[in-house]
């Protein structure tokens, strides 16, 4: 009999939504007699009581941390570790999100606990151990991990568990704590959600999570204009292969390839690019690659993960039309 703790990070926008998925993961590995505990800490933690009352949770621990919020991970981690110290905790689960990353890593140090981060799913092994399944080497390998300590700390990627529902019958048993005397070396000066890039700034191709790459195929008809329009609409950076730059369609700063720039987006849409190695050398970091080309045997078919054999103009027109 032990406790499985779900750490619920509180952000400027309240309870992190993916916490509900972690609650489901905790329920999934819960053995007979085990209890699921949700723990949250904030300067104004009582406010989130209802939002944290998930179905299937045995206890909600609310830690009030005067003057300490999500930015003060140095102090917050002490409050969490102190609250867990006297309990029989087998696992601490948290969302694999920036909001929990620093706190959980610091709790691992404070409790001298093993930690496995960015896990996809948990599996109860034959011997009762809880295996953590995750990808490694940019999704090229699947690894199974085991933690040797109790508690063991695991952060879970979103999208692999259904979200637990909020309890219809209200809060489970609630334990309130106050963590006094916490000291942080971090002071929040401004929490400005509005700051950031203005819209008319050209997104540099190295910073974009989504890059639309055009090649020689874009020199036909209004394909280039369509690609430009689509990139703007999708919030993507527009890049090109060498012929597009040589022929003056795009500036050198937008040239992807070994004589230009190496990009590491999350997604690359590659339109009308033949896929010579000089170009593909410029896309790194294992992004999702989708190519549209009229030639199904083009070199790009050996590089991209997905290929649509089609006219890029037709596809762009469809992408630009609203669903």
């Amino acid at each position: 009999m032990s406790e499985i703790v779900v750490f619920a990070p509180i952000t400027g926008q309240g309870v992190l939504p993916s916490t509900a998925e972690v609650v489901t993961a905790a329920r999934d590995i819960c053995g007979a007699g085990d209890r699921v505990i949700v723990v949250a800490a904030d300067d104004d933690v009582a406010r989130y009581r209802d939002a944290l009352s998930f179905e299937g949770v045995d206890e909600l621990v609310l830690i009030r941390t005067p003057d300490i919020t999500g930015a003060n991970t140095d102090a917050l981690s002490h409050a969490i570790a102190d609250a867990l110290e006297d309990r029989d905790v087998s696992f601490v689960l948290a969302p694999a999100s920036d909001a929990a990353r620093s706190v959980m890593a610091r709790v691992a140090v404070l409790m001298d606990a093993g930690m496995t981060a960015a896990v996809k799913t948990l599996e109860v092994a034959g011997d009762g151990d809880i295996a953590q399944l995750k990808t490694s080497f940019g999704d090229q390998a699947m690894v199974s991990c085991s933690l040797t300590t109790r508690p063991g700390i695991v952060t879970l990627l979103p999208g692999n568990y259904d979200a637990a529902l909020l309890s219809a019958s209200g809060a489970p048993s609630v334990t309130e704590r106050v963590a006094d005397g916490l000291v942080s070396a971090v002071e929040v000066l401004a929490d400005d959600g509005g700051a950031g890039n203005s819209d008319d700034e050209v997104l540099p191709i190295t910073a974009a999570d989504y890059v639309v790459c055009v090649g020689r195929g874009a020199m036909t008809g209004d394909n280039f204009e369509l690609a430009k329009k689509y990139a703007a609409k999708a919030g993507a950076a527009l890049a090109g292969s060498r012929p597009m730059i040589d022929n003056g369609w795009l500036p050198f700063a937008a040239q992807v390839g070994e004589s230009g720039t190496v990009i590491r987006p999350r997604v690359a849409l590659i339109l009308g690019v033949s896929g010579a190695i000089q170009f593909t050398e410029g896309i790194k970091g294992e992004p999702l690659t989708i190519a549209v080309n009229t030639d199904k045997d083009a070199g790009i078919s050996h590089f991209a993960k997905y290929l649509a054999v089609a006219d890029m103009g037709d596809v762009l027109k469809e992408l630009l039309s609203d669903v």
Partner: protein
Amino acid sequence: MEIDDAKGAKPLRLAICVKHVPTCDDIEVDEATGRIRRADAECDINPCDLNAMEMANALKKSVADAGGATIMAFSMGPDGALASLKKCLALGADEAYLLSDRKFAGCDTLGTARVLAHFLKAKGPFDVIFMGEMASDGATGQVGPMTAALLGVPDVISVATISCGERAGQFIVEQHIAEGVRRLLVKSPMVVTVPFGVNQPKLPTLRMQMRANKIAIPVLTASELSADELARLAPKSIVTSTRAIGTHAQAELIEGDAKAIAAKIRELVEGGRQHV
């Protein structure tokens, strides 16, 4: 820590920790051991470590007329990691240290943080310790905050900029959060972790590369750790099995007319952009 009111009266001491990671598109798993064949893989400095190096250089430059700064680079790993340290030197680091020992080989993130913390303490104190946000091979982002906790200093992740505050020992740090940008005043020492793309790393020049080739990089080993410290390096998160996921030699075809293709692309793009 002695705090001097005159900004930058003392030179800043900056550290950067980098990781040498595989860059190749195809990895191989040794079927007998279930481990990645690292020796065969092409490796380079972890991409966002270059953004961290750029940020360290920018901070160094900002205090050039006010006491200046030195940058010390650290990397834990086998001899190959010398290449990544050399890159740091070519980009402007003043000294570099390789933390290398067979006894470090099995470290998990907590063990790695313990090794880094030990040598950062030994070579410190540092005002700011820079690290890349996460390694491209492990992608956990734990080592920075863990190292900070072990050193008993704050950490700030997802840092966009750092500059000197009004008083010595204080820094203004801008942090990317889901809602936008958060501005923090942080007392040093501290660890900051820097994501890919927040700045445009400069390239090493021919001249700086020549200089880097002439700087010796000392190797620091486990002999500098106490028996107690060594015992604590035992991994607590253990990989029990690894299998390669088949990579695509040929693209998967998206079938259908332009409308169907666009729909599939929309779906793929949406999913892919959310994937961390």
